[in-house]
């Protein structure tokens, strides 16, 4: 089993975490002994660790727990007298109603905040259920912009939403294209339409690329799951666009890129926006050929941040992939714990207020200082990556770049 956390029981993890804190306390036994009078603060962690989204959900859970482990190890919530964070784990089973049920359990158990719940539809249900009980809820992934547009005062998303990512994708592409001497005239979009996360991409792209004289010549939508991409490959062969812009989940991403390979479809570049596979280490390691030179505008950590790299090491050590799920959930949890620290209280309202007013800057993401507007962190932004060799390098924006874009890709 790749995912160790999954194999640990909830109890043994909590025990482990407590043991960690105890050890940390023992490590500083030379100092006056700090008696932890404060009760632990309960934080709910909901993810779909079973069902269709199980892989991503488990990755998310690992990230969130890593954050808790880290904070507990470094002395817990200081403003609460070093109170430990007690993680209450919930499994949404990849179903919205089960996710909402988990929130009820957590409300019962008296959690102070909730972090979760990966998929947009589950997030919609969990944030609403949490709102009913006034529990602050930090959304880790859930890119649908509906999540933060319902006026729920308890809901916060630290990462960027779909609209912001697509806009950044356009800007990033234009920059890469310009640097290469504007070779792109036509693009084709291939997006998934089942969960709707690729919906709306065509409009934003068409509008954004038009000023640079780039035409969106075709939009090809497909369902998730999709077992065959041959038709799309054939159409692309006929249309022969300069650049392909895919936007879909991991499994389809893999199948799509492999089909292009098999059908010898070779555009100047593949530049995905929220491409499920493109900037995932797992894909790069399993299909290095298909992944080569693929660019992707997606969630990414600040590659110069030491904490981010430490987390990467830790993730790899656990046998997991350091994908966006891990660092987004980690960051959402850190954001929550930071708010608890600032609130100096386990009270839900106080934490909500602290989240609203957060200016937190100590994170591992390329976002700058936090500024919440209607629950959305306005500083949140994606980066543009490219697979080069066995690594994934950041190619845009320049202030975070670790590699030079290779575009058009070599034949």
């Amino acid at each position, binding site marked *: 089993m790749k995912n160790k956390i999954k194999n640990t029981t909830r109890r043994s993890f909590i025990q482990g975490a407590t043991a960690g804190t105890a050890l940390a306390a023992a490590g500083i036994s030379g100092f006056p002994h700090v008696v932890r009078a404060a009760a632990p603060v309960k934080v709910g962690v909901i993810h779909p660790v079973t069902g269709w989204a199980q892989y991503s959900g488990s990755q998310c859970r690992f990230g969130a727990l890593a954050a808790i482990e880290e904070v507990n190890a470094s002395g817990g919530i200081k403003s609460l007298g070093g109170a430990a964070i007690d993680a209450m784990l919930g499994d949404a089973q990849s179903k919205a109603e089960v996710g909402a049920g988990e929130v009820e359990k957590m409300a019962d158990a008296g959690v102070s905040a909730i972090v979760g719940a990966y998929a947009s539809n589950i997030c919609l249900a969990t944030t609403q259920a949490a709102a009913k009980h006034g529990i602050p809820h930090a959304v880790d992934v859930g890119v649908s912009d509906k999540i933060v547009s319902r006026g729920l005062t308890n809901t916060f998303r630290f990462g960027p939403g779909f609209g912001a990512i697509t806009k950044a994708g356009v800007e990033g592409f234009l920059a890469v294209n310009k640097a290469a001497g504007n070779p792109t005239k036509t693009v084709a979009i291939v997006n998934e339409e089942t969960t709707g996360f690729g919906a709306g991409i065509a409009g934003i792209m068409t509008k954004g690329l038009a000023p640079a004289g780039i035409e969106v010549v075709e939009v090809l939508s*497909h369902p998730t*799951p999709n077992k*065959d991409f041959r038709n799309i490959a054939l*159409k692309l062969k*006929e249309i022969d666009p300069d650049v392909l812009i895919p936007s879909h989940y991991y499994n389809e991403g893999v199948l799509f890129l492999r089909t292009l390979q098999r059908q010898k479809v070779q555009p100047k570049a593949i530049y995905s926006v929220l491409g499920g596979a493109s900037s995932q280490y797992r894909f790069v390691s399993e299909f290095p050929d298909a992944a080569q030179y693929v660019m992707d505008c997606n969630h990414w950590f600040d590659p110069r941040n030491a904490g981010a790299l430490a987390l990467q090491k830790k993730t790899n050590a656990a046998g997991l992939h350091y994908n966006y799920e891990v660092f987004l959930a980690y960051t959402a949890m850190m954001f929550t714990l930071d708010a608890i620290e600032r609130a100096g209280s386990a009270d839900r309202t106080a934490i909500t207020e602290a989240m609203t007013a957060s200016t937190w800057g100590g994170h591992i993401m390329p976002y700058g200082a936090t500024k919440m507007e209607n629950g959305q962190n306005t500083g949140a932004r994606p980066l543009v990556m490219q697979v080069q060799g066995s690594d994934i390098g950041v190619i845009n924006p320049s202030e975070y770049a670790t590699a030079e874009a290779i575009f058009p890709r070599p034949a």
Partner: protein
Amino acid sequence: MEFLGLDLPSYSWQTVLGSAISGVFLGSIYALVALGLTLIYGVLHIINFAHGALLMLAMYAVFFLWKLLGLDPYLAMLIVVPGAYIFGYGLQRGVIGKASHGRDEIILLVTLGVSIVIENAALFFFSASERSVLVPYDLDGIDLGVTYAVYPELIALGGSLLITFALWLFMSLTDTGKAIRAVAKERQGARLVGINVDHIFAVTFGIGTACVAAAASLLVPTYAVHPQIGYLFVLIAFTVVVLGGMGSFIGALVGGFLIGVTEQLGRLYLGESMGVITISVIFILVLLFRPTGLFGQRSG
């Protein structure tokens, strides 16, 4: 292009032909999965809902043989096919036959129960993540002009023809094959010539499962394995079986190709998502208007 008042996109003949050819390849996969299903239906009158789950299980077996022993998926057939036969035989004799009291609807529910158990056991032990087998000849193949045909696809196509032929030979030349066909229509008569009907039932289920395991070996180089993969094929396999005629191998083969080509062209013209509705529509129409399918025998 306009068709029945619908404004359809128009494509070059190369694209349309390429799509149709890809439908043939896809259809060969459907036919492979449907062969075992139609055999089991023809004799046992079992609409085997566990068929997809068994396909998935066999795909995992092929995957692990590759991953752990480095065994080529096609070679893995030598292990997986007999293994599946034994598993299928035991499943019919030990579970399905015993629990179903011989009633069609109950059999349906029992196989549904079995599929739920198998699928979730796979989820439990293997997790939901996709696992792919990468064969060295993954990208090699033949340029057909309008489309590339890679070896895994060509082998699957050849395999579907070969397995259909082998099944046909088995059913017409061996006593067991004849007994299977005899039992399909006349159980009491079969008992009276000394055929152990329970055994033949289990043998049939075993062979059906072995077929699906052969299909699994041929599928794995193209499709990643995950616990829900069976579901992706099984509904279509039902359509193929119903269209081809329950119990007919040639029907499964022709039905597979027909569905494959229809689906690909449907997706080409109606869009990838809406295009698959052609399958459901064919399914419903055949069930309503020609439940015996194209090559089916009249029952009764």
